[in-house]
């Protein structure tokens, strides 16, 4: 018994040990480099006049790229080649970029048009296309891919362009690749836009490419419309497709001489917001987010739809009374309202706040901007909040430093009445000088990092407002710490180590990963952070209010959105490094689903793998959907970092959310590959079989159901031809891929000699059949007439039968010409009779000869 108890005890201890997993086991800790200490010190020399646009340079963009690429530095490299480049020698994102988009760069008519042989990285590849060595262009294009996950294209193609007979042709003209590239100020604008775009705009797995219409050109459909006398309602400058493409022309890319202004920002963000609409609609198992009830309610739209007199479907968006719009264009439809409102909410916060209804404003702020808003005052508050932790830490350091320093300062930033505790004049001067420096540093930081920084902080009134706000904020911190110093001289020593902990993300990461449910994730995260901070501060035995204050400080340094974004970037990086595993899994599922019996009987079912173009035979489609999540789960279990699998449930969940779009993308690539291959096979089949199928059709015309209408003959022919096509089409609809083919096979079928022969031969048979029908009709009319005669001259008794015999017979015989005439009239009007020009007089004569026989038959059967 004793040994059993001991055994149980050991088992329990082991379980306890395994349940309380040390956070050092987290994947994110293993794959991330030791986090850099975020220095509280700024650049010694501050140029308070510099703005974001002044610091935009290659080196800055390179630094941003490096920060992102560093997340991949511990992960497995990608294997493969792109032209001369060994992908394993490249940072993982560059390798993945070339794998995905390597065939979509430069001149799509000529892969040798640009000489990439001297390139060792992706920015160089882009710069070769721009024909500008070492230019910022290449870095901006690549940074766009890193942050947005899609391609800012540098190629001579425009998605879905009707006028594009081949790449480089648009609106009937030929253009060099350079016409499709971006101007210097447009590149700056793309980079600037990257600084402000956050989730959900940066997490759109289906958003794949941005194309530019050649410089100087309008959209081809607009040109066409103008040619046909249409247009005039304002030119379209951008289009967003739910298949993941955005196309832009010059008007959407306008940047002012002050590069921070211009229609560019609103226009491009508007188009990207359309992608948000599509993406979220799909996530919610619908079509568009903007047509979901809650959005329609706050935006005040409803749909009027009906069929008009001609049977055309009409769909019109109408406004509920009281609708308030951020712009006239936002009234067009919910989709435009969504794109316009959200983009202007971010870019013109003050205007938007005044323009839209309060519930609409709250909806957008809560669901798309983490309850923030962007009016000037709010932007300043946002900046203060962002800098709060830093400002507080610096204030802490200032108080500590100034309480000991013997240096003399001269500054009137503060005076002694600003402080709630008595402060020596020397210390007031010291604090003033340091605070003034801090104010300058932070203002400069905001101007060079925040996109509205200069426009607000350089504006006369706004600048004063900001200075006052910041001064009050710093004064609050200083007073807090001065008070502490006054009451507890050991406070600074106690709290110092915690203050040094503030920039570190570890507690925040652990807090985030201990929160499961996404519904209250933010609240859970904040609660967990507070708990962890309290545990960390427990040994210091601080008053509760101080602990709460320090917890708040830590939280301000690591807001929920930024930790989530930080973590998901690592999981994304991890999954990106495992792309080959994802592709293997996709190929395996694809193969399995092609090994089951092929059938198109069952209806397609499932939304994990879907198609907008083409078709997929339902047995394969359903198999892919059935296996999708199973394979994705298996991948999550299977992938590992240096041999170690992921075990934390939240990490598994986050990794799975990164795997799903990659897995889908791999399956779609396999589908497109198979479809392209099949299309080639179909073309070969068409060439080979056209004559044979024509022969079959013209050898037997039993497929003709209606000889009268040529349209119907053609339709019957096409149906027959399609039935004769014995090619099993898996990746498209047979009627679509063979549509033109069957048209060609059936061309002029009614003029074909064999058809005309058949018609001629059929005439005799048809005439005979028609006469039989005519005679039957006359007989039937005769029977009807006979029944009428029986009413007048009944055969109910033998006496009546005998008595009225002659009358009955006369009754029928006298009415016979009339009914015969009626039958012949009907016969003459029969389209078949008309079509085949049947000799009616001849049949009439024949009918006359049969007259007595038919009458006698009726006498016998009915009289």
């Amino acid at each position, binding site marked *: 018994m004793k040994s059993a108890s001991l055994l149980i005890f050991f088992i329990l201890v082991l379980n306890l040990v395994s349940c309380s997993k040390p956070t050092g086991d987290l994947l994110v800790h293993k794959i991330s480099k030791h986090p850099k200490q975020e220095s509280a010190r700024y650049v010694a020399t501050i140029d308070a006049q510099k703005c974001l646009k002044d610091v935009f340079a290659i080196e800055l963009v390179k630094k941003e790229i490096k920060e992102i690429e560093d997340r991949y530095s511990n992960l497995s490299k990608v294997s493969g080649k792109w032209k001369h480049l060994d992908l394993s020698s490249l940072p993982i994102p560059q390798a993945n970029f070339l794998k995905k988009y390597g065939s979509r760069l430069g001149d799509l008519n000529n892969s040798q048009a640009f000489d990439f042989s001297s390139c060792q990285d992706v920015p160089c590849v882009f710069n070769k296309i721009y024909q500008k060595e070492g230019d910022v262009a290449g870095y901006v294009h690549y940074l766009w891919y890193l942050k947005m996950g899609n391609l800012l294209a540098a190629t001579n193609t425009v998605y*879905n362009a009707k006028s594009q007979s081949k790449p480089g042709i648009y609106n009937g003209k030929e253009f060099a690749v350079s016409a499709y590239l971006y101007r210097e100020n447009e590149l700056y604008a793309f980079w600037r836009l990257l600084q402000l775009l956050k989730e959900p705009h940066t997490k759109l797995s289906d958003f794949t490419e941005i194309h530019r219409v050649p410089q100087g050109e309008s959209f081809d459909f607009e040109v066409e419309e103008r040619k046909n006398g249409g247009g005039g*309602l*304002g030119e*379209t*400058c*951008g*289009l*967003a*497709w*739910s*298949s993941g*493409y955005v196309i832009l022309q010059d008007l959407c890319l306008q940047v002012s001489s002050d590069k921070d202004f211009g229609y560019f920002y609103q226009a491009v963000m508007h188009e990207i917001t*359309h992608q948000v609409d*599509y993406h979220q609609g*799909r996530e919610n*198992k*619908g*079509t*568009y987010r903007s*047509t979901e*009830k809650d959005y329609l309610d706050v935006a005040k739209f409803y*749909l*009027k*739809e*009906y*069929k*008009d*007199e001609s*049977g*055309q*479907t*009409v*769909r*019109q*968006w109408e406004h509920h009374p009281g609708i308030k719009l951020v712009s006239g*264009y936002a009234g*067009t*439809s919910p*989709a*435009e309202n969504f794109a316009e409102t959200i983009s202007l909410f971010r870019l013109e916060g003050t205007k938007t706040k005044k323009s839209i209804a309060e519930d609409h404003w709250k909806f957008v702020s809560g669901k798309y901007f983490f309850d923030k808003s962007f009016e000037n005052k709010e932007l300043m508050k946002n900046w203060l909040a962002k800098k709060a932790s830093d400002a507080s830490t610096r204030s802490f350091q200032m108080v500590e430093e100034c309480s000991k320093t013997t240096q003399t300062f001269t500054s009137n930033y503060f005076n002694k009445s600003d402080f709630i505790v008595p402060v020596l004049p020397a210390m007031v001067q010291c604090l003033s000088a340091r605070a003034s420096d801090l104010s300058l540093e932070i203002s400069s930081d905001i101007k060079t990092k925040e996109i509205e920084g200069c426009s607000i902080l350089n504006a006369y009134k706004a600048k004063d407002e900001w200075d006052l706000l910041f001064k009050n904020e710093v004064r609050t911190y200083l007073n807090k710490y001065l008070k502490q110093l006054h009451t507890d001289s050991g406070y600074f020593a106690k709290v110092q180590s915690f203050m040094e902990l503030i920039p570190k993300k570890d507690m925040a990461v652990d807090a985030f990963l201990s929160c499961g449910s996404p519904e209250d994730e933010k609240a859970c995260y904040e609660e967990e952070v507070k708990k962890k901070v309290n545990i960390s501060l427990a040994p210091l035995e601080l008053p509760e209010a101080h602990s709460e204050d320090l917890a708040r400080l830590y939280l301000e340094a690591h807001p929920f959105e930024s930790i989530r974004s930080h973590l998901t970037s690592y999981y994304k990086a991890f999954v990106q490094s495992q792309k080959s595993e994802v592709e293997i899994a996709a190929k395996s599922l694809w193969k399995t689903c092609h090994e089951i019996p092929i059938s*198109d009987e069952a*209806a*397609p*079912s*499932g*939304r994990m793998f*879907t*198609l*907008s*173009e083409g*078709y*997929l035979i*339902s047995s394969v*489609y359903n198999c892919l959907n059935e296996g999708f999540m199973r394979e994705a789960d298996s991948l999550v279990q299977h992938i590992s970092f240096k041999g170690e699998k992921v075990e934390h449930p939240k990490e598994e969940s986050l990794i799975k959310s990164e795997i799903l779009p990659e897995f889908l993308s791999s399956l779609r690539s396999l589908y497109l590959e198979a479809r392209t291959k099949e299309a080639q096979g179909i073309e070969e089949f068409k060439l080979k079989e056209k004559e044979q199928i024509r022969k079959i059709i013209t050898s037997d015309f039993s497929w003709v159901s209606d000889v009268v209408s040529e349209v119907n003959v053609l*339709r019957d022919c096409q149906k027959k031809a399609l039935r004769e096509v014995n090619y099993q089409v898996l990746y498209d*609809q*047979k*009627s679509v891929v063979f549509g033109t083919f069957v048209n060609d096979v059936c061309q002029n079928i009614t003029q074909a000699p064999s058809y005309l022969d058949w018609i001629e031969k059929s005439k005799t048979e048809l005439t005979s059949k028609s006469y039989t029908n005519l005679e039957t009709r006359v007989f039937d009319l005769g029977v009807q007439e006979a029944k009428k005669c029986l009413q007048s001259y009944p055969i109910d008794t033998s006496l009546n039968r005998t008595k009225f015999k002659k009358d009955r017979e006369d009754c029928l015989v006298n009415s016979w010409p009339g009914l015969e005439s009626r039958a012949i009239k009907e016969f003459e009007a029969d389209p078949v009779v008309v079509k085949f020009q049947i000799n009616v007089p001849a049949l009439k004569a024949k009918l006359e000869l049969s007259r007595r026989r038919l009458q006698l038959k009726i006498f016998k059967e009915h009289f």
Partner: protein
Amino acid sequence: MGPQFILLSLFLIVSCGQKSSSVKMGVTTRAELVAIKGEPLKEEKIPIKEGQVMFYENDEKYQLKGDVVVSSFKAPLGDEQLLIFWKHKFKDCLTISKSLDKIPGSHTPHEMELACPESGQSVIYTQGSDLISRLVEYEVR
């Protein structure tokens, strides 16, 4: 036998007593529609002779011409949302695919309608999308 017979009869009565919920285009009258679906949330006139639309929950709408229901517009559910579902369903049909009139000034891609006239059904989707947004049923003429 007695109690079992009564039970069976009851079952039959119950099942026969359930109203048929199908609305037939070109046949069902306004009164019959109200009997099936209840009173509408609202009604609106439309610019066709004797035309109006009745709005119901879940974004269902019924178009009437005079006293007769002639078409309906519904949100698709489940697999009905898939465009491929309808391509499969209409594969033996002589389908017509056309773009609807563009919303003036809008720059989202065209809405398309894939119709099977012989069945009186069509679906609406946006060009480039894999999902449909509306199911339309109409009188077969």
